[in-house]
């Protein structure tokens, strides 16, 4: 362990806000990207189902 305490770790020698501001936003962006990609995929599956229902409806006499 190169840190004397967890407090020292979070303080980052006085650079804490800059270091954690960087890593925090990286994590946030990745979380947002994954969430929105999943939502988009769900919506695309829905759009396929919508086409399916349309064609089902058309073929019913």
């Amino acid at each position, binding site marked *: 362990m190169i840190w004397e305490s967890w407090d020292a770790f979070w303080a980052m020698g006085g650079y804490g806000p800059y270091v954690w501001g960087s890593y925090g*936003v990286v994590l946030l962006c990745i979380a947002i*990207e994954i969430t929105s*990609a999943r939502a*988009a995929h769900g919506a695309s599956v829905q759009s396929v189902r919508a*086409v399916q229902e349309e064609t089902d409806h058309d073929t019913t006499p």
Partner: protein
Amino acid sequence: MENFKIRWFQWAAPQSFYPLAGRLWPFFGVIAAVLALAALYLGFFVAPTDFQQGEGYRIIFVHVPASWMSMVIYLAMAFWAFLGFTFNTRLSGMMTQALAPTGAMFTFLSLWTGALWGKPMWGAWWVWDARLTSELILFFLYMGYIALTSAIDDPRRADRAGGLLALVGAVNVPIIYFSVKWWNTLHQGASVSVTKGSSMAQTMLWAMLLMALAFWAYSIAMALYRVRTIILVRERHTQWVQEVAA
């Protein structure tokens, strides 16, 4: 050789690429997570304090990999756009589009982490030097690509217009990379170079390279995931997509 050639074009059909991408993305996702954890451990618990920049230098472990990916992804987009123009394959345009959001994200992160590094070290969040300005232009190119392709309703026309922007914009990538050599920039020169090796401590270098590989795997996973979404939307009227979704 003939077989090999046929196989490559076979994967270029959305119908056969869709299940392949579905099997591959979780694999790259797991690799990304494992490498990122290893990089964070090395970067925060093994790499020593920098004698000049103290603990503030630890931003490098995300700043440099994010900047590399911002350029690599744009070149990958230009590559797919080129394939699209050459072979007129449908998948090429879809891959170009699937890569763009992740590339834009890494470009934003490069600028953001750069600002948070610049403030304590240079005393400024932003300066209009060649490296920073050309990276900002890259961000606008990504945004322009996304806006252009989403503004055109016909997917094939959107692919062609976007592909042209991806190809022309690729000129900016070597400008970013060599800007620190060509102009007198406030931004420092490369710490890692193909010709001269590295000027960094071994553990620092490893943490940075592992994170770069993690971002690389993450980008591949995201592109493969997103291309499946694009395939479903574009081919939703085809028989095979209807069967997949059923």
